[in-house]
């Protein structure tokens, strides 16, 4: 179903209420069509009347933190908040240690009463946030969520467009000496070209291997077998050989642990798929995953999973990687940066000091190596429309993610990882993650691309995972798994309104790292 066809359909008959709702989520129909014409046109918030109408003028203060505090001061003077007002932050239990000490400090500085409401299962945060969108209790002021959920939350009218506040308070996300590492500055906050969230995390998937085993390996044997020197792999082909070489099932030692399980099975496949030049959708939201890139990527990954990994890469939960690798029973592991902290800590790991880091392998395109690193999760702050004073809540988020406060908060043990550029050189961080790891993590982040961040992202990804897990478990072949996914995606897209999704996808793909966008252009995709 082409875009033209869609457009015609919309023009031919008067917009029915249903079309209108489906396409625009409450916004003006004209705006939506306008959005089609230029991909980056500002999206309307669901109910524009309550969007923050602030004069675009910077608040005084030298740092984001100061401006946030001054903002609270001004809000107090304007009578919008007063001492002791209670604000509630919904966040994951794993972040309590990052957040709660900072909350106490913030409450001391502002006189407000910010408190935490934790949720134990990541998925339940989405559930509870979307429930809040329906019942509007006002019990929550800020949500710390996966950054790919902001599409749903924004369209449900739950969260406030922060773009004007960014102009007013300047959180120094995409400019200045302490900016976020690009492209984090874009995809953790943008939806349809507007800032709906403030990123507080870096979840570029990181690769770890056993340095000691590689150093002790029989280099001649490797050369004999593969016809090249044993070195860290740069391409996926080399990577597969590398894993194969170190896989020793008879010793109970496997080549790798890469997620093939129910919730993150897409990560390894997506890295290959995107680096081969694939894209999830074309500009009309028709899926492009049933393509050479998609099928080959999946076949490669299936081979790896079925031959060189423990069974529980497919059937365990994500935490299995956090026991397999540190206990020393796999050569390679691919997970969040926190695995690096965990694996190099002698208290928790049998392989402390033996961990090596590598960049994500890529695919050669005419002599250029294209790497693509999945960025998975990415916690970010969004502000509830139904809270007491959304602007004050935003100020907290800006203060917390600021260059100084954030550094302390993120360095504490928790699920949030470093995201501002200067922090990668900071001693505290180097100590937490391992000094060797920081430059690699920086490169990984620079090459990272976001999870699908459309409206319905959760649903798109779940259906992808479901089929991929079946493929990894040997229940479906690669092509069928991807074709089934594509069929289901089409249904989701049609249900949620293709026009709106097209707009969101076009703006989202502009958040991919530049070299991937260039590759797409070269391959004639967009």
């Amino acid at each position, binding site marked *: 179903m082409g875009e033209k066809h869609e457009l015609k359909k919309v023009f031919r008959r008067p917009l029915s209420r249903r079309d209108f709702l489906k396409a625009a989520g409450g916004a003006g129909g004209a705006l939506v069509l306008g959005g089609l014409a230029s991909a980056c046109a500002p999206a309307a918030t669901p109910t524009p009347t309550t969007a923050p109408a602030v004069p675009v003028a910077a608040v005084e203060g030298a740092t984001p933190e100061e401006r946030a505090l001054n903002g609270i001061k001004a809000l107090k003077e304007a009578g919008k908040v007063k001492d002791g007002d209670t604000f509630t932050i919904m966040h994951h239990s794993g972040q309590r240690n990052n957040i709660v000490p900072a909350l106490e400090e913030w409450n001391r500085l502002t006189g407000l009463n910010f408190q935490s409401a934790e949720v134990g299962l990541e998925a339940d945060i989405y559930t509870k946030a979307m429930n809040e969108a329906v019942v509007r209790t006002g019990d929550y002021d800020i949500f710390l969520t996966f950054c790919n959920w902001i599409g*749903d939350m924004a369209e449900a009218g739950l969260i406030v467009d922060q773009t004007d506040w960014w102009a007013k308070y300047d959180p120094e996300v995409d400019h200045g000496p302490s900016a976020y590492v690009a492209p984090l500055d874009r995809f953790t906050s943008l939806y349809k070209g507007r800032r709906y969230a403030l990123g507080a995390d870096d979840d570029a998937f990181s690769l770890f291997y056993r340095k000691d085993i590689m150093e002790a390996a029989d280099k001649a044997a490797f050369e004999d077998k593969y016809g090249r020197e044993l070195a860290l792999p740069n391409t996926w082909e080399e990577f597969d050989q590398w894993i194969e070489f170190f896989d020793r099932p008879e010793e109970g030692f496997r080549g790798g642990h890469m997620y093939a399980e129910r919730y993150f099975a897409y990560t390894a496949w997506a890295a290959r798929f995107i680096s081969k030049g694939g894209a999830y959708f074309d500009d009309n939201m028709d899926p492009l995953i049933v393509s050479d890139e998609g099928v080959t990527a999946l076949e490669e990954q299936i081979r790896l999973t079925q031959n060189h990994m423990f069974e529980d890469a497919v059937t365990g939960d994500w935490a299995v990687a956090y026991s397999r690798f540190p206990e020393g029973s796999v050569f390679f592991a691919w997970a969040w940066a926190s695995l690096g902290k965990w694996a190099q800590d002698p208290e928790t790991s049998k392989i402390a000091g033996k961990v090596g880091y590598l960049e994500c392998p890529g695919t050669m395109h005419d002599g250029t190596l294209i790497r693509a690193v999945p960025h998975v999760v990415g916690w970010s702050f969004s502000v509830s429309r139904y809270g007491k004073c959304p602007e004050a809540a935003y100020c907290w988020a800006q203060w917390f993610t600021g260059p100084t406060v954030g550094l302390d908060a993120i360095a504490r043990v928790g699920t949030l990882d470093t995201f501002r550029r200067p922090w990668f050189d900071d001693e505290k961080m180097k100590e937490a993650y391992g000094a060797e790891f920081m430059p690699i993590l920086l490169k990984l982040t620079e090459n990272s691309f976001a999870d699908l961040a459309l409206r319905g992202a959760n649903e798109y990804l*779940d259906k992808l995972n479901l089929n991929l897990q079946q493929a990894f478990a040997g229940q479906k072949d690669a092509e069928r798994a991807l074709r089934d996914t594509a069929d289901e995606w089409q249904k989701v897209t049609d249900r949620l309104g293709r026009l709106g999704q097209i707009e969101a996808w076009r703006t989202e793909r502009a958040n991919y790292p530049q070299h991937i966008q260039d590759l797409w252009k070269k391959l004639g995709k967009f």
Partner: protein
Amino acid sequence: MAIKVERPPVAGGRKPLFPRLVRALNRESFFQNVLAMPMQLLLWFLLIIPTLIVLYLSLVAWEPRMGVDWWQAPFAWFRNYGHVLSDVRFWQAIVRTIGVVVVAVALEFAIGLALALFFQRDFLGKRLFTAVILYPMMLPWVVVGLAFYLLFLEKGLVNYILIHFLGFETGVAWYHYPAVALSTIILADVWQWTPFMFLILYSGLGALPRDPVEAAMTLGASRWQIFRYITMPMLKQVIIIALIIRSLEAFKIFDLVFIMTGGGPGTATESLSLYIYRLGFVYGQLSYAAAMAVLILVSISIIIRLAVRPLEYEV
């Protein structure tokens, strides 16, 4: 039989303060209605409005992320229901769930009954043993799920026992094959809920009058005959109720599946409740989930109605 007597006042010999009120309170029609009143009030008060909302939702096309309030959503009438009926994943989940219910509840019943009979006689430390048997259902579900998840991990205790004590070459990939994965889930469910069957049957057995049994014994009936022709018929009520209650709960099996396999690989072990959870809370299709729930409610109602029928002829 008209008992027209000057009844002595209710409480001892004292004359009641408000004789009329007391008489009114004691009138049977009043009495019986008052008894059922609290429950009816509670259920109507708490459930009628949400139920109406569910029904309404099932008739509209609505998801929270559409950005409209649920009461403003456009009507889809019976389209949601149509989609449910043609939803393959739904039917697979139904069949799978019914399978789990049948197997799990049958096992729980058999084991529970055996245990209950076994514990009818007194022996040393019986109270302690009873407490142990009841223990599994006292643990929070999350913990039961986690315990079994860890037990059946590829590098878990069960595989360790298989390899090192029972001479298996390798462990079993418990969660990999749909049938095996389902069996582990059923096993966990049986472990957790057999105590419930035991509890009901045990107290049911204990409550049976002894005379018929003793009479039969003097007439020289065998143990099996007593069990088959005297105990079981007297216990029928309790058995049917226990089976109904347990089946209803097992039909909603969610926790164990969610923790142990997440419904995977793919949807191979997805139970109906898990699918509805995904629909409602992950995919955000609340009105579709509502339609599915209504359909399920209606069909279970019919089945349970038939199951309950024998109870009505009894008393």
